């Protein structure tokens, strides 16, 4: 059961990764690609990390920290990239 849940989460994360990374090949704007990247890099990676957490609960503190830093850093990075790629007026 534990194995099943963990592999489901990891495959969900992999599907998110693939779905969110494929639009990089297209010709859309940077902002549009940022939306799909936030699906893959933040949510997909978080799903993979939770899957690992279920599978190997011994490393919980490490994986928990990874989860927090993933959520915070990728979100802030999305904001900074969006702000900078538009050539924002004041310092962000």
């Amino acid at each position, binding site marked *: 059961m534990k194995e099943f849940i963990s592999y489901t989460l990891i495959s969900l994360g992999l599907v998110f990764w693939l779905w969110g990374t494929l639009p990089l090949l297209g010709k859309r704007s940077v902002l549009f690609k940022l939306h799909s990247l*936030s699906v893959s890099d933040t949510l997909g990676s978080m799903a993979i990390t939770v899957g690992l957490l279920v599978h190997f609960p011994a490393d919980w503190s490490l994986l928990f920290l990874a989860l*927090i830093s993933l959520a915070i850093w990728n979100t802030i990075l999305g904001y900074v990239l*969006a702000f900078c790629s538009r050539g924002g007026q004041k310092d962000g």
Partner: protein
Amino acid sequence: MNYLNLLLRLLIWFLLTADLSLANIVIGLAVVLVLPNRKGRATLGDWLRVIGNILISIPLAYVEALEMIFFPHSAEEVTLERVRVNRIPALIFLDIFVITFTPKTIVLNYRDDGYYEVHRVKRQ
């Protein structure tokens, strides 16, 4: 609400170090007190609302991601969103975090007159 700020910092410290020995508590208290303090007007209610928003936004983000996967969102638009004025920078930061965390919306800019410029994708 100064002590609330201190409590938040202590919580982060204990999450980071994962160690509840006496020495660590003393070091954590020292670090928390030495870090610069800023006067703010945030109340307990503000903090609770933002923390609640963060907890809600995690499942919401996954729902939005699945929506984006199953129904292609190919239209884009930029909207202005109003927020409450006179907030301390930490709360503004958390607001931006919550909006950007959900995959359909990204904050582009925070303007001094209290508006966020939000970029969002929509179904056609």
